[in-house]
């Protein structure tokens, strides 16, 4: 069994390490620092940690001001507040100016669980992806989260990193290279490709195992960077398999599936099935129960893969 760690935990640890190495890193939170795990940084580097209270819009623009002076601000809250409450601040003050602000939000997706729909942000990829200059990343596990945080520091410009509350299996290894905007092909198979991000990557690997038992060979792509999308890898894979499934913990409108479909439609259209949340809000429940309810399970992905294969042109 793979080790289970929440991506938000890895974030807090990565910040601790970075704080030591890079004195320009500052962290802002809006009264959720224990949950987002930025409190650890705050404890070790109190001078460079700003708790802005329950006031997300002000927090985002304060970070903008810090960035104009050469600081590298990490801004954290729950996804719904960090992107929903502050969308226009992120657009007009951070992205329009191309400021070096890193928005790292936790509690995305229905895997938030018992807190229910108000706290389960399933629209943030779409919200952030539409803004010019923005980079959007959703790591699949704790190991990759750490890599993405390190890469975000080296990258100059605004970034949104989407993290989760619940523990997820560690499926990548420390040694594997990580580049923003470069998709990671986890498994090769010629019948169908599953392109996933976040917690759905692990489920996609399980789906590929199931499919293999039935003689279907699936490619699994970890599309950790949703914007800019790795079109080159995507088209290459599409040409090899000619049928695809996208999988994400997000509404179908404007998320990973939408990005993939838009990209392929213009270059190399193939049948695509989409796993994601279809025009519904979340609700209270344990993550496992909710994954079943919203059809985000390995068996849902496997079924979608078979459907995509049957739609291939003979």
């Amino acid at each position, binding site marked *: 069994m793979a080790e289970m760690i929440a991506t938000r935990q890895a974030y807090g640890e990565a910040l601790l390490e970075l704080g030591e190495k890079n004195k320009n890193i500052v962290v802002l939170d809006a009264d959720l620092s224990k949950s987002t795990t930025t409190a650890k940084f705050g404890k070790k580097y109190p001078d460079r940690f700003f708790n802005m209270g329950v006031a997300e819009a002000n927090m985002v623009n*304060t970070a903008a001001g810090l960035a*104009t*002076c050469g600081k590298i601000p990490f801004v954290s809250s729950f996804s719904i507040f960090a992107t929903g409450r502050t969308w226009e601040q992120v657009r007009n003050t951070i992205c329009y100016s191309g400021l070096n602000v890193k928005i790292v939000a936790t509690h995305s997706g229905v895997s938030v669980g018992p807190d229910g729909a108000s706290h389960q942000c399933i629209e943030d990829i779409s919200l952030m992806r539409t803004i010019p200059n923005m980079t959007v990343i959703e790591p699949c596990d704790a190991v990759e989260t750490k890599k993405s945080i390190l890469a975000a520091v080296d990258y100059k410009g605004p970034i949104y990193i989407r993290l989760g509350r619940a523990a997820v299996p560690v499926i990548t290894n420390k040694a594997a290279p990580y580049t923003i905007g470069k998709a990671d092909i986890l498994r090769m198979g010629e019948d169908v490709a599953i392109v996933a991000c976040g917690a759905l990557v692990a489920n996609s690997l399980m789906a590929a195992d199931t499919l293999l038992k039935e003689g279907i060979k699936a490619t699994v792509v970890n599309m950790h960077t949703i914007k800019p999308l790795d079109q080159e890898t995507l088209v290459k894979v599409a040409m090899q398999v000619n049928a695809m499934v996208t999988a994400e913990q997000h509404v179908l409108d404007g998320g990973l599936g939408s990005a993939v479909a838009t990209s392929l439609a213009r270059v190399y259209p193939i049948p695509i099935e989409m796993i994601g949340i279809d025009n519904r809000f979340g609700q209270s429940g344990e993550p496992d129960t909710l994954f079943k309810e919203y059809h985000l399970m390995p068996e849902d992905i496997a079924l979608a893969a078979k459907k995509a294969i049957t739609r291939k042109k003979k």
Partner: protein
Amino acid sequence: MKIAQRLDNKSLAERSKVIRRHIIRMLARAGSGHPGSSLSTVELLVALYYNKLRHNPQLPAWPDRDRFILSKGHACPALYAILAELDYFPLEKLDTLRQFGSILQGHPCMKTTPGIEISGGSLGQGLSVGLGIALAAKLDKKNYRTYVMLGDGEIEEGQIWEAAMAASHYKADSLCAILDQNGLQIDGFIHEIMSSHPIPDKWRGFGWHVMEIDGHDFKAILNAYDEAEKVKGRPTIIVAKTVKGKGVSFMENQVDWHGKAPSKEEAERALAELK
């Protein structure tokens, strides 16, 4: 640093006339923009840029410069005119305001205009940015100051009060807000649209040092800027009573001149008054 040559009040008044003439010409040529909102800021900005701010037009990114943020970004023609007069960019550029490809966008853009600290146009955001800059100054142990100009309609935005609370919490004493209290917003007089008074008491309640001045009186303005610099442990706001459209009789205190460019004929009448 431009600060070396402090101007006397008479020269400041002459400068203000030059800036007002630029504003009228720019807006008439552009065919759109905000004359009333620009004209009310002139004395406050001229006094700041010519006599207070430590800055260097040849080195806009000089790290130790004082910062100015025009949070009521729609008044940017006034700021553009001052930046051009101070050689941040050639005066001819003023003729390109709001045109395709211009460095002078309809609202401030830090990417295209030298001397603009942050892009703006969406009201309510600049004070927070100023707070971030003030926090950075503290971290870096630098003594530059940050000035943010707000509109009296703009402060109806909730984010302004988030920033007010946080600036006071973080004892951001290098932060100085300047409220251009011209009594008008787009849809009418402030007191008709939203009862926000008493303004000074509200800021005091949020822990700010508050001064109330006539925003067209150089002596009062410069005294206020000097006093703000001496305040320790809390941010300062200068509540400056101004006249929207100041200097052009038919625009003064008229709600309709918020965001309408003068026609050629109107511009000529305005320029005649600004001789």
